[in-house]
């Protein structure tokens, strides 16, 4: 199920040519998938909002304005104001940065740790494999939500702790993915050839084996961002997410839920933001998967 077949890897010159045209092909395939492109565009908008919030809004997301509380959406406040008179649109925009940071960092950490663990387990096998996979099983045996709240309760509330808590639960996915790839590729001739030429273990793993799992890793990474952001909002709902007054969509929606019938905008817009973000990254990830794995297409 992986892009490159063994033939590509052996012939180095032809490999570069083959790779290049393959990348182009993947790119074209991706572009043809309209929904995936749509997802990518939304994701880019979100990244833009995260990087340059000042362009989108002039309000301070933290400054309280106790005279202007609970204003409904208007030209001046497109998403209305919250219980402290803060502009909800501004909080949603700045919340983008918080959520994307949480999503990106937690998945990155999980990816790095997971890939390392999976590589070691898959490559060396035997006892090492057994121990590492049991450790992964343990993490998987604890439901993500409970793992998250336990860790947050232990470490205390902060954005960084939230990132750690979320990353731990995502490690197993990457570890298992890489391990499976390695197991399937390990026996191939070209790997044996590389070992015979005296190449170091690390080199072998990085140069020959990992490239084969790039595709699933990339897809998992993208989807993982969506999942992380969703899990973060779940934790915020339980009161264990980002501490006030940092704008975070889950915390915003959750703290306003008693008002959902009177001041619906305080819950609805952050909720939509979460949905849009997860939706975008999921579409994007799905599109990537389709583009990288031609078998499922016509």
């Amino acid at each position, binding site marked *: 199920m992986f892009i490159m077949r063994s033939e590509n890897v052996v012939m180095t010159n032809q490999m570069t040519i083959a790779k290049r045209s393959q990348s182009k092909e993947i790119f074209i395939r991706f572009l043809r998938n309209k929904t995936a492109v749509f997802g990518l565009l939304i994701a880019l908008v979100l990244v833009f909002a995260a990087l340059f919030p000042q362009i989108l809004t002039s309000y301070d997301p933290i400054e309280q304005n106790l005279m202007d*509380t609970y204003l409904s959406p208007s030209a001046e406040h497109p998403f209305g104001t919250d219980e402290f008179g803060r502009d909800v649109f501004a909080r949603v925009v700045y919340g983008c940065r918080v959520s994307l940071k949480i999503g990106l960092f937690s998945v990155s950490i999980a990816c790095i740790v997971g890939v390392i663990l999976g590589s070691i387990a898959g490559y060396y096998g035997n006892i090492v494999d057994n121990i590492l996979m049991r450790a992964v099983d343990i993490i998987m045996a604890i439901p993500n939500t409970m793992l998250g709240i336990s860790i947050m309760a232990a470490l205390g509330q902060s954005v960084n702790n939230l990132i750690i808590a979320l990353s731990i639960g995502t490690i197993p996915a990457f570890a298992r993915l890489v391990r499976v790839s390695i197991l399937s590729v390990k026996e191939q001739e070209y790997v044996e050839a590389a070992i015979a030429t005296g190449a170091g273990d690390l080199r072998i793993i990085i140069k020959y084996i990992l490239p084969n799992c790039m595709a699933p890793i990339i897809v998992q990474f993208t989807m993982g961002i969506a999942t992380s952001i969703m899990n973060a909002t779940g934790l915020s709902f339980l009161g264990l997410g980002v501490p006030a007054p940092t704008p975070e969509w889950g915390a915003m929606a959750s703290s306003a839920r008693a008002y959902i019938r009177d001041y619906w905008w305080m819950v609805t817009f952050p909720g939509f933001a979460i949905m849009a973000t997860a939706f975008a990254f999921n579409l994007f990830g799905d599109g990537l998967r389709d583009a990288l794995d031609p078998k499922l297409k016509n």
Partner: protein
Amino acid sequence: MLKVKKSKIISLVLAVLLMISALVGCTGSPEKTEVDNSGQNLSSGAEDKKAKDTITILVKAEPTTIDPAQQNNEDIGLITNFVYDGLFDLNEKGELVLGLLEDYEIEDDITVRFKLKEGIKYSDGTDLTSKDVFFDIKRLQESPVSQSHYRFVDLGNSVIEDDHNFVLKFHQAWAPFQNIMSTGRGSIYSQAAFEALGDERFGRTSVGTGPYKVVNWISGTQIELTRNEHYWGEPPKTKNIIIKFIGEPTARVIELETGAADISYYIEGNDIERVNSIDGYHIEQGDSYRYFTFLMSMQEPLFQDVRVREAMTLAINKEALVRAATNGVATPINGYGPPLVEGVMEMPEIPYDVEKAKQLMAEAGYPQGFEIELHVVPSTLFQRQAEVIQSMWAEIGIKANIVVSPLATYEAQNGGKFQASIRDGNASEISNVLIIYESSFGSRLQGNDDWLDEKLLELRTYYYGDPQREIALKEIYDYLHEKRYSYPFMMMPTVYGVSDKVEGFIFHPTAMNINPNNWVVYE
């Protein structure tokens, strides 16, 4: 062949799943108890108004136990109110009245003679005697949760004269005793029943003298009560009560809207209008004993300079804080407790003066401010207050990091030290309100003030009516005001959502002492 096997397996799996869920369905759902469905016809001149035999009440959380000796929060007190009585009681005007007592007499500073009413029986038919009172007090003194309240009783020197007469001796004059005995902790239960049921089971049922008794407790969902046939007073008008636990405020309002409940304790500020506009429901609201204050640790180095503490209070715009945090439902206060508590005095208002605050901070050596942790319990109300205070302190350079933890004033980080916190109190007696300033209760201000400790102890020795009491109180308040370790800012009213079809509901400042005996719900 294979084809058949596979689909067979699939259907087998589905069947197993369905079976499991059916089984679970039979055991997992709460059983409907045999509730007497014959509506009573009350002959109060009401033509054909049929009364329901069950009132449904909503509370916000399931009590962990209803053992009076373990009572440490309101959730428990709400339930014990229905099934137990105390020697004294608190009526809806906040006055102390006799409960199980026929009479009492303060013989001297440390001696009080009590006379129980005759003929009071527990829900299991046995008689209430003085022995039970002594047993209960002894248990209170042994329970870590309650011993601090009853530590003044000297059981060793107290005497049981007969089944209905006994004399209690105190280690020192103890003015608050009546009030303490009117709380849920003061509930009287049968020694024999406790010994028969044992520690664990006693807390899940009731053998008390109250108007109702526990008939079923469905964990996580509700407690079902039924009339206590042996009740010593006028039998309560409604036979059964169901108390449901619903955590989400919105959900409680929805229950009222759908008519699934008759009364709801705990209605949020923004739902008041909504409940009033429900056809057939209205709000009962009034002052309560619940007040909010923020506290500064007496042991925190950053707060050692009184100018810092003053600055922190001057930076608060009380009106705005109260309004923003509670949608205008709560009222600002200027004393060291809620006005309803006897002995609370109005203090000079602390102005809102950001400039002066900044000046004081600079004088104290913190022109740039500093960073602290502000602890609150995980309740939306507290968190909202914290956010406003956080924003106001930011104006004078104080960066407050809000830390949410169930016991706001006590964290095991840094060896149990904390810095600032927001607390609420709901004591109805002044000594219990001011107890937070005592050193032996480190969980509040981490107090280490000898003068306060002595004075508060002294306060307890002056019985009500003694002019010394006023003098002592004034001294204490002036001292607190000067020292500025706390800033009480608002009183939160008690709000009930009540069906129009309920008769006999009389507002009570605290639901822990409300009288349910006259409640009737009509169809």
